[in-house]
């Protein structure tokens, strides 16, 4: 009972795990490139939650810093990704990831 009421580390971890799975799910199933990228963001954020939770419970600032950097990286990644996706759209006239498979065996 007490487990449920008082928020403990496990709750954070569970949440992040769920986020991770959701992210992966999105990446694997969504057709739209943008959504796929959002899935990637979810994965990164799952990591962030972990970092923050751990640094809260272990003490020390490393986790927080890590999380900050991850956020920044995610932003940069998004920028590049969008550029590429736009380019893709220019060429293929679609952003359907699953339809872009001209190179294969």
């Amino acid at each position, binding site marked *: 009972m007490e487990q449920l009421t008082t928020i403990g580390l496990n709750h954070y971890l569970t949440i992040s795990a769920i986020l991770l799975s959701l992210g992966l799910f999105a990446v694997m199933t969504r057709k739209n*490139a943008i959504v796929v990228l959002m899935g990637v963001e979810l994965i990164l954020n799952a990591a962030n939650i972990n970092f923050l939770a*751990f640094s809260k419970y272990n003490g020390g600032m490393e986790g927080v810093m890590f999380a900050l950097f991850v956020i920044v990286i995610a932003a940069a990644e998004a920028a590049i990704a969008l550029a590429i996706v736009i380019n893709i759209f220019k*060429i293929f006239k679609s952003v359907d990831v699953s339809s872009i498979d001209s190179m294969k065996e």
Partner: protein
Amino acid sequence: MFELPSGAEIQGIIASLKASVGFFIPEIYLSVLFMLLILIDLVAKGRKNNLLSITTLLGLAGSIFFIYQQHSMPPGEFFFGMYVLDEFALFFKYFFVLSGILAVIVTMADEQFDREVKSMGEYYALIVAMVIGMIMMASSADLLMIFLSMELVSFTAYILTGYFKRNSRSSEAALKYLVYGAVSSGLMVYGFSLIFGLTAQTNLIKISTELATHGYDPLLMILLTLLILAGFGYKIGAVPFHFWSPDVYEGAPTPITAYLSVASKAAGFALLMRFFYIAVPHGGQPYEDILGIDWRSLLIILSVASMIYGNVVALWQKNVKRLLAYSSIAHAGYLILGIIVMDKFGTQATLIYLLSYFLMNFGAFFVVILIANKTGSENLDDYRGLGKKMPLAGAALTVFLVSLVGLPPTVGFIGKLMIFSALLTKGSLYIWLALIGIMTSVISLYYYMLIPLNMYLRESKQPDDTTFNPGMPAQILMVVLMVLTLYFGLFFTPLSDFAEYSSAMFGIVLQ
């Protein structure tokens, strides 16, 4: 909840920062070069001359000077243990700078750029950025640093892969690379977060001591190791984390393909070694794990899968770039063999193999570019009869391919020799691994030989005896690479000594 640091502490921090900067000169220098290039690009907009490329060459060459000075510095970690300087790192610094230089030269030789893009713009700047990123990968000792440097490399790689904006293959490759890379690095970060949770540390050495002292839950350890491995494995392009590589290698501009297949693979290996030798706990005996988990089998599966998959699938390729992509997967497998041994000799062998791979792979791609300039294609069938039309290029390519197979007297043979020797020093333990390596290398002979076979044994469909010469500088580079490949195949003491010197890694003692 966190109280601000006192003035004294801040003074200390600044002081240590000042001290650390001294160890960071090459990186700083390269960053400056990076910005300089952007500036030059802004100034000389659109003008198509070799200004950028020449500057890049000179700049990169200059960095060697600073790197050389670091030999005198004592190995140690700085920036609060984020960053280390040791022979191991130095080796890779040279490696990356040189491959950067080669990449630039190869780019200059490639005529496809003239067709595809108007201005080289930020291309060279990105290459330099990638060099920086890889150097940092090779010398970072902290999870955060690892993550940052890896992302730096990845991002630049994404952009360079998609550099031919109007080329569908290039863009497609970029997208695939991006998605795949993002996911695997995401997983890696997740793994990092878990390991941070286990140990409350981000510094590799601290982590390993933590794990060694307090122990850990093996299941969780495996999970996070796997997640992290996903990140590294994607960099080195080893099965089963390789899926991006064939498409990317085929789609990307050939110089970038060469660059990725050599440099970023090497960076991945640098990380892999550091991480497994340091973070992953292992006891005194290299091949006996104290904590109940067999890390080695992880790598063994990785390498065996890579060797077999890469070589076997390459049999079916008709496109030379794609063929080389698969072969590079296979070579990743051979390289991992050296890590599996987990001792100094193994490391040395891996480094030697990297060097040999650097020579022969760049050589091969270079010739492929030259041929593509002539024939405008990378299909095997278009190589028919080239042996007569481009005698020198044909000979060079043959040498590089023979070296890739691993036949004497080429440097590729030395790499294999070292790797297998390292395996056999462990007695009969790894012989079966060596056997697989041998067998697969025999298989590889067939598809590598497809290329000379088409060049020499087949007549071209439209027979014209116009011999085609790539132009002096290209020829010189080709000959230099070829001669080096052969020379180091016969007298490989310098290579091996350098590798031996570089296999000293800060913070760990290898037998």
